[in-house]
């Protein structure tokens, strides 16, 4: 009975009362797949690198990109950013400018001279990569990181493939491309230019390769038969773009027709304006809605004064007069001829009708299957021939730089498994973090930082880069617009709003855990989690 004055009863703490027994549902921390990551053809962990960038830790952010994509400065410029098309922030104000931040990080890395080192010890295995386009470069990079010895054979005089000979300079300055390729070469990858592979079997035996990755791209322009006069100026898009890359000044004349509706057609029309054409007219057989070109490229072309003639095909040419036929869309959206003709005067016509894969050397590779002009591969990117993998434009897929880079990475992982006598197992995917799982109240209001675009009148005169970059201040701003959909970003909301102190804060980078001894299962943490990283699950009662 040794109690303070006026105290007669023993006291105890309420911690003896384990209120966790009241619970019928329990909160569980989950990681969901952000829509941006889910959409990225290169498999980047976009949210994670934005997380580093939000803190201003740009080097960590860049290294996170480099885990999946060796070309951030290139990709930040030329990728069609499917990540932004499905960004949940678009439903709030506008999508996070992911490509702009990626480009900023890529440019910063080049300026700062950041580099990567091989992660694994040398395996002594030799891999041949055929083609130094985005897919071949990505595959070579990842194989080098995994400790393999890689040689790249490229038919052209310089690396980059379509990035160099298809994409104009105003979208991708060549010094950016060269800097990122050099980083791959610095990893120990050997590049051989002007080396077109003719006999794959013989080469593999002669130089003792253990595996090969084919990424020769699609460089043969599709043609349309247009009866034309002797003096006609009809050329194909790749011929033109390759010529421009080599420094030629093709004589296109005042008025140029561009036949086709894809991204290449946009590149050609915009290049034509830069080469001095007063009028560049895109002739396409369907409507704008049906055009395969990406909307922002069509918009940029329109801003630069490129004209469009929809629902039209070119049927013949004579003395600078092109006969065109009007089309109409049937119920299925397919263009049908109407029999109504008219003529258009033009000095030249560029065909941008798509490209085919050059299959000549592949014919002798045993077991290889070609369907609809492309090489068939399994889910592991291996062709029908053992040890021969393929990716990029030469396999069935959407033909973009990003898809190609994704193929290169994926193939590298399976090739690594193949060389080590095992099979690479891709980790399972989490469920996608959809917009309805977020509590958007908690995010500050902020519009997107618009990249400063060069004045439209100025840019059509030169091949200077059209879209400007972010600087340190607005890149940080843009990164911080990320909602971190589906993954904890340590906002402390669950820790704060629990009326029962049943959330334990583990410290920076370590997130939180629930104290199920006291959690009553009210669900407030789950409702108030901004990013949808807490799920309520029924208890087994």
């Amino acid at each position, binding site marked *: 009975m040794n109690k303070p004055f006026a105290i007669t*009863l*023993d*006291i*105890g*703490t*309420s*911690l*003896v*009362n*384990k*209120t966790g027994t*009241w619970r019928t549902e329990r909160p569980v921390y989950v990681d969901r797949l952000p829509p941006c990551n889910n959409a990225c053809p290169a498999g980047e962990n976009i949210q994670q690198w934005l997380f580093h960038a*939000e*803190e201003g830790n740009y080097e960590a952010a860049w290294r996170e990109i480099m885990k999946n994509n060796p070309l951030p400065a290139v990709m930040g410029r030329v990728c069609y950013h499917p990540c932004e098309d499905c960004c949940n922030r678009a439903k709030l104000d506008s999508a996070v400018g992911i490509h702009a931040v990626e480009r900023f990080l890529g440019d910063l890395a080049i300026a700062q001279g950041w580099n990567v080192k091989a992660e694994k010890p040398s395996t002594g295995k030799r891999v041949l990569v055929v083609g130094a386009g985005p897919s071949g470069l990505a595959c070579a990079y990842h194989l080098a990181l995994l400790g393999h010895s890689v040689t790249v054979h490229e038919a052209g005089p310089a690396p980059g493939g379509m990035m160099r000979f298809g994409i104009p300079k105003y979208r991708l300055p060549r010094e950016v491309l060269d800097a990122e390729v050099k980083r791959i070469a610095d990893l120990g990858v050997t590049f051989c230019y002007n080396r077109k592979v003719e006999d794959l079997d013989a080469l593999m035996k002669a130089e003792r390769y253990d595996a090969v990755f084919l990424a020769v791209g699609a460089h043969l322009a599709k043609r349309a038969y247009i009866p034309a006069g002797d003096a006609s100026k009809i050329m194909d898009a790749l011929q033109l773009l390759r010529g421009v890359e080599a420094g030629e000044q093709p004589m296109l004349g005042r008025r140029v027709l561009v036949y086709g509706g894809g991204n290449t057609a946009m590149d050609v029309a915009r290049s034509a304006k830069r080469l001095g054409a007063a009028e560049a007219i895109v002739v396409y057989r369907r409507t704008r809605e049906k055009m395969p070109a990406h909307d922002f490229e069509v918009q940029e072309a329109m801003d630069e004064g490129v004209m469009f003639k929809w629902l039209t095909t070119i049927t013949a040419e004579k003395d600078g007069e092109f006969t065109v036929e009007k089309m109409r869309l049937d119920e299925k959206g397919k263009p049908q001829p109407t029999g109504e003709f008219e003529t258009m005067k033009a000095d030249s016509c560029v065909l941008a009708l798509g490209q085919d894969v050059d299959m000549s050397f592949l014919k002798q590779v045993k077991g290889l299957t070609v369907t609809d002009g492309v090489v068939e591969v399994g889910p592991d990117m291996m062709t029908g021939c053992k040890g021969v993998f393929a990716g990029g434009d030469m396999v069935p897929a959407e033909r973009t730089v990003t898809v190609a880079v994704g193929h290169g990475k994926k193939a590298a992982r399976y090739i690594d498994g193949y060389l080590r006598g095992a099979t690479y197992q891709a980790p399972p995917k989490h469920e996608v973090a959809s917009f309805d799982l977020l509590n958007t*109240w*908690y*995010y*500050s209001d*902020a519009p997107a930082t618009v990249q400063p675009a060069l004045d439209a009148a100025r840019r059509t005169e030169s091949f200077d880069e059209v879209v400007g970059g972010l*600087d*340190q*201040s607005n890149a*940080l*701003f843009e990164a*911080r*617009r*990320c909602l971190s959909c589906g993954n904890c*970003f*340590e*906002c*402390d*909301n669950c*820790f*704060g*709003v*629990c*009326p*029962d*102190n*049943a959330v334990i*804060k583990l*410290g*920076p980078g370590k997130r939180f855990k629930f*104290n199920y*001894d*006291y959690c*009553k*299962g*009210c*669900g*407030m943490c*789950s*409702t*108030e989690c*901004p990013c949808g990283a807490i799920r*309520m699950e029924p208890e087994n009662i």
Partner: protein
Amino acid sequence: MTSPLPIKFYQTGTFTVGNRLLDVSVRSVQSDSQRNNSLNSGHRACQGCGEALGARYALDAAMRAVNGRLVVANATGCLEVFSTPYPESSWRVAWLHSLFANAAAVGTGMAAAMKVKGRTDVRVIAQGGDGGTVDIGFACLSGMFERNDDVLYICYDNEAYMNTGVQRSSATPAGARTATTPAVGEAPGNVMNQGKNVPLIAMAHFIPYVATASVADLRDLETKVDKAMRVHGARYLHVHVPCPLGWGCDTGDTIKVARLAAESGLYPIFEAEYGEITGRRMIRKRVPVDEYLKLQSRFSHLFKTTEGRARVAQIQAIADRNIARFGLVPEGAPA
């Protein structure tokens, strides 16, 4: 390279409890893993209790402001009952319960005792629910204000007598169903009046500081507690704390409901010094009162009849009046 402009954008700013991008010195008390946890685990409040949360928010902030030198008097009510069933206590502050009606008077006594003993470092808080404040303890509270005693009185307003089974108090809002204002007859639910607005009555005593706050806005609440603890004399803080049991809302929606009360204008958040309003929390995303009312079964009868809809319109008029009166949306903003 030019030096980067200072960034004033922090992803979630101060909307979330914590924020790793903010400097540690400007983070909330609740985001600190070393916070006091003045009301500890194991208390017997219902799931999703707004009052338990509000009390921890307020007392943790006060404990930090006065460096742990705090004594608390508590009125009878849910807060007292669920925190101290003999022999357990959830309090990690010096805490005393006397009667239902006299928390303000006990606080006055504590402040006087500290003064006599020369303990100028020890500060006093008296607290209670809306029953113990706006009804039963009102005389003691008014006296404490009138004498300008050095006490911060905190009312956790859950708008009825929840502990005894949801009976109406004079803080119960218009149209709400309670055990004593059932949703039957010609005028179902609570009478359609303006109720008793104790923050405005407190202001009429011309005391140094009066404020309203909500569990939906932690940073605002912590700032007001901190401010209140830095001045002497009688101070009053009114905290809106939803009660899932009495209001008939989902236990996980406590903060959401409180947020909608503020964003609809039904619960104006403001502060006043010496009888003059000096600050208000602006509405960020204005919503019609329906969004607030529909989450709570105590208002569900209003949405079943034409007469009920007319009452919803009257409740909307109350919200609109608050918004105009306290200036809760910027001038020229769309209604």
